[in-house]
């Protein structure tokens, strides 16, 4: 895999990577000494404070795509992709509001802990397997990016770069558990924000912008020149359905991402989880706004210099090589690496929790906690190895597989978690049936598996937006209607929620007593089911 960007002095790249990994391993090693129980390994002992957690949340969310894939897609889609990216920030506030603090109150390690308490073993197996699949796809995207980053830094073949990056990454994450993942993520967020913003200021100064002092928001004076050569950049391009389709796939999907939920669970208290969210939005907004500036600057560079960027993934790095000294370019590459490392750390911790805690507690309920932690370590390392092996043949656009996976998660896991927390009638069998049916439909109607059976077209279909507009509301409709039907069929009584299941809901909302009428209506869920059905039909209409 060739690239347009290469550090002319390889040793500068080596120094950046060695320093970065040395710090990560040091934090991992220090954190490993704090890990003595399952609470420590999966939830950092429920001790992470709001600022550190806010940084960690932002780092876990901001993947390598923030430095590479997004800028490529801004170059391709221009402003609509900026809008798509802005709405990611809702994910953690929304999940914290809708279920994060409730699950933190019950001291869950993963969303699977709640699924097991609320729906039992069968549903846990279903949801955990979908989540593991999506986490592996997510980690795969990061591994591809890390391999490409090592390739660019050292000028070595991609496959060798991938193996080196994979081993180095999985090693330090396995060492530190959730303490290590949390503190490393906080450090990585600081690094990636500086690497995104500061060199961009220098680039903007070279481009002649007077707003170089604050790159995220002060590049307005570049707009007239940009519009002269690229008048379509700010066009909103799509109709309202395209913008609405962002909600099911890209807002509701990330709400169920286990590695994001686990960041909320590590908070030192329920109240601090909410304050961490405020810091998260501040830090993520700063980084993401820097990304939009980079996307803008990339388009501006192409439009005003007449140069072409064949590999749009590398736009930020090419700009840095063009305008900044080589050591700055290497530092930016270090920031990109940090972005990938923090996300893959969260992904692998989620895989570890889902396998080592959720699945093992079902398959081997008598296993003691020390053995379960060992299996958690093994699952963590194996998740990394699988991601590396899959990354040998990467998809065309680095970011596509990650975004597509969000729609799959929204179709399978989101309804089960949200309705499980807010609706006592949510039925175990209905969850299994609706999650599997809608997950499979989402896969079938995407262009990636059966190109002949596709809902939507072009980038909307490839990213899973048009598919998600069909299967996510369908999943809610099916789940609600099947729950209402199954709960009233004596033959399926075993799948109906028990009194104990329902008591879980009241307890995690903070009630000291049990009231059958709370969270137990039929009218509003039915209204939601009907509205979702209409949205599904809307999603099935031909896309222009």
């Amino acid at each position: 895999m060739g690239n347009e960007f290469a550090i002319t002095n390889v040793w500068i790249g080596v120094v950046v990577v060695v320093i970065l990994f040395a710090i990560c391993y040091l934090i991992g090693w220090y954190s490993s000494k704090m890990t003595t129980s399952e609470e420590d390994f999966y939830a950092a002992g429920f001790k992470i404070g709001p600022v550190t957690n806010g940084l960690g949340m932002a780092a876990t969310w901001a993947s390598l795509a923030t430095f590479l894939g997004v800028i490529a897609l801004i170059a391709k889609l221009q402003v609509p992709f900026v809008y798509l990216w802005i709405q990611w920030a809702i994910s953690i506030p929304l999940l914290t509001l809708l279920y994060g603090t409730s699950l933190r109150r019950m001291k869950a390690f993963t969303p699977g802990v709640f699924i097991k308490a609320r729906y039992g073993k069968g549903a846990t197996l279903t949801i955990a397997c979908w989540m593991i699949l999506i986490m592996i796809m997510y980690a795969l995207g990061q591994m591809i990016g890390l391999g490409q980053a090592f390739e660019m830094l050292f000028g070595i073949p991609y496959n060798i770069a991938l193996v080196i990056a994979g081993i180095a990454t999985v090693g330090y994450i396995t060492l530190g558990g959730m303490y290590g993942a949390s503190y490393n993520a906080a450090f990585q967020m600081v690094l990636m924000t500086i690497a995104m913003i500061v060199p961009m200021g220098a680039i903007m100064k070279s481009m002649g912008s007077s707003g170089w002092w604050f790159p995220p928001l002060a590049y307005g004076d570049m707009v007239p020149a940009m519009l002269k050569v690229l008048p379509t950049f700010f066009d909103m391009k799509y109709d309202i359905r395209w913008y609405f389709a962002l909600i099911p796939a890209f807002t509701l999907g990330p709400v169920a991402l286990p590695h994001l939920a686990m960041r909320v669970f590590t908070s030192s208290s329920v109240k601090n989880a909410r304050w961490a969210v405020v810091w998260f939005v501040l830090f993520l907004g700063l980084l993401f706004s820097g990304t939009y500036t980079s996307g803008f600057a990339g388009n501006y560079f192409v439009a005003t210099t007449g140069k072409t960027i064949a590999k749009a993934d590398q736009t930020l790095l090419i700009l840095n090589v063009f305008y900044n000294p080589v050591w700055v370019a290497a530092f930016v590459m270090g920031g990109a690496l940090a972005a990938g490392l923090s996300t893959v750390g969260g992904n692998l911790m989620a895989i570890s929790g889902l396998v080592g805690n959720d699945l093992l507690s079902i398959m081997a309920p008598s296993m003691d906690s020390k053995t379960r932690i060992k299996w958690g370590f093994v699952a963590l390392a194996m998740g990394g190895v699988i991601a590396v092996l899959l990354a040998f043949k990467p998809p065309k656009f680095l970011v596509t597989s990650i975004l597509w996976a969000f729609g799959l998660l929204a179709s399978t896991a989101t309804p089960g978690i949200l309705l499980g927390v807010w609706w006592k009638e949510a039925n175990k069998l209905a969850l299994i049936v609706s999650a599997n049916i809608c997950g499979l439909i989402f896969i079938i109607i995407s262009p990636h598996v059966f190109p002949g059976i596709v809902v939507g077209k072009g980038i909307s279909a490839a990213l899973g937006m048009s598919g998600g507009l069909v299967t996510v509301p369908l999943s809610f409709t099916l789940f609600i209607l099947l729950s209402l039907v199954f709960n009233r069929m004596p033959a399926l009584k075993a799948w109906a929620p028990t009194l104990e299941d329902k008591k879980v809901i009241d307890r995690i909302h903070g009630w000291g007593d049990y009231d059958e009428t709370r969270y137990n209506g039929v009218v509003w869920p039915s209204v939601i089911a009907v509205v979702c059905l209409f949205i599904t039909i809307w999603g099935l209409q031909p896309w222009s």
Partner: protein
Amino acid sequence: MKEKLYKKEIWITIIFSFLLMLTGHFASIFVLFPSLKGAMMWGFPIEYIVPILMGWFGMMVVCFVMAIVCNQFDDDMEAYAKTQGQQVMTDKTKGSV
């Protein structure tokens, strides 16, 4: 009091969900009401810069208010449970569900 707290919880959740969705998806407002487009702010078309600002500072303000309101609600719930002599699950409770 119990019924009032329950309704309050539902309304808090609905209102903040709506506000979060509004701040994160503010670009849709300009698609729904195209006549709002055309003005400039800080050198940018407002349909570009306002969604960015709403998705950053607007959402931060919503989260700030959400933290205050929800944390106060938790205190009210615990105070109510105490008056009823009930034990509630908090983050200090030993063990899980």
